[in-house]
């Protein structure tokens, strides 16, 4: 079965969605991602949807679910690179993805995650977090 790869980058997980999402794939991603966060103790998750051109209400809800689940597991989520057409569709569907942080590019997404993790992890001394 096809899966969406989850890459680890230091303290963060990177998910790049490059294919059209169907419901089964979305559910698999949700499971894989939560497991991976728990395994690695990741502090942030970045979902790059710049190649995603079609969304429906299910995928929209999945994004906000993933974000909520990650928050429960103590990881920040940022969605980056949303296409204008996707944004308009989500708004028309009435999904404003409240509580999901968004960024225009991967670079800005990383900066947000670093800031968020840095602000929280300043007291830690095990050196796991860069800078």
């Amino acid at each position, binding site marked *: 079965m096809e899966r969406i790869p989850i890459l680890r980058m230091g303290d963060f997980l990177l998910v790049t969605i490059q294919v059209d999402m169907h419901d089964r794939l979305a559910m698999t991603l949700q499971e894989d991602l939560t497991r991976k966060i728990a395994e690695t103790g990741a502090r942030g998750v970045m979902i790059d949807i710049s190649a995603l051109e079609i969304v429906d209400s299910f995928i929209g809800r999945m994004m906000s679910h993933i974000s909520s689940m990650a928050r429960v597991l103590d990881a920040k989520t940022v969605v980056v*690179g949303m296409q*204008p057409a996707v*944004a308009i569709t989500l*708004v028309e569907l009435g999904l404003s993805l409240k509580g999901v942080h968004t960024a*225009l590019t991967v670079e800005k997404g990383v900066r947000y995650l670093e800031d968020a993790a840095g602000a929280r992890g300043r007291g830690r001394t095990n050196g796991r977090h860069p800078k």
Partner: protein
Amino acid sequence: MPVTSTIGLGEVLKKNRESLLADWSRDLAGALSRQKDLIRDSELKGQCADFLDQLIRATQSGEVANIQGPHWAGIRDLLNKISASRAVQGFTPTETATFVFSFKKPLFGRLKQEFGQDVEGLFRETWSASLLLDELGIYTTDVYQKSRENVINRQQREMMELSTPVIKLFDKVLALPLIGTLDSARTQTVMESLLKEIVASGSEIAILDITGVPTVDTVVAQHLIKTVTAARLMGAECIISGIRPQIAQTIVHLGINLSDIVTKATLADAFEIALEKTGFSVVQARPEE
């Protein structure tokens, strides 16, 4: 017999072409005296002559009842042209239809002369001629209406294009001055051009300035919120500026919740916030004297 009667009308027209034309164009010039500056006499006379020629040709075919028929294509084309040009020249629908209706008087006069004592024939011909001219007159009005609608549609399109400029104010700061009422179609265009520009310029902040929006009701507010939400989904923040006191009152009275959105009274205030958020500040270079 209907056949003889229709041929009768065609023949009357043909025989009296010159005198009909003279009478008609004189009447018409009188009726349209107010519009002297809109159309030249020679042009009007030319149109009359064309119409008469086409009418003669069409009536000789023998088919008078149905002006949608193939014999009437020529006259329909002519009326299309005349009505369309009238609509552009600024004639009223009445004045446009008068062009056809005013032909009744000279025509009925000639019919009376031709038929003389034949009351029955006169009545028959007058009736069919009257029906025919009525139909042609109404047809002119239809065409006039259509060309007017075309003008309106075109203007609407042009307004749509004019009214949605996205301006780059500063590095990573966009401004969108909204002017006029926001309906669904315009919101769609505004949203699309804004989101496209956000991607193209990599902007982090967009300022929606509603100084030029005359009224904000629930629908307009809904559209604004949609635009702001869409921009946020893309990763850009929106500030709404240019909220006039009356509009602030309306928003609160209508119970519209804008608490998730940063709002400012003027574009200048919004710009300052935008600079702050992107890490810039404005400093006075020279002390005031």
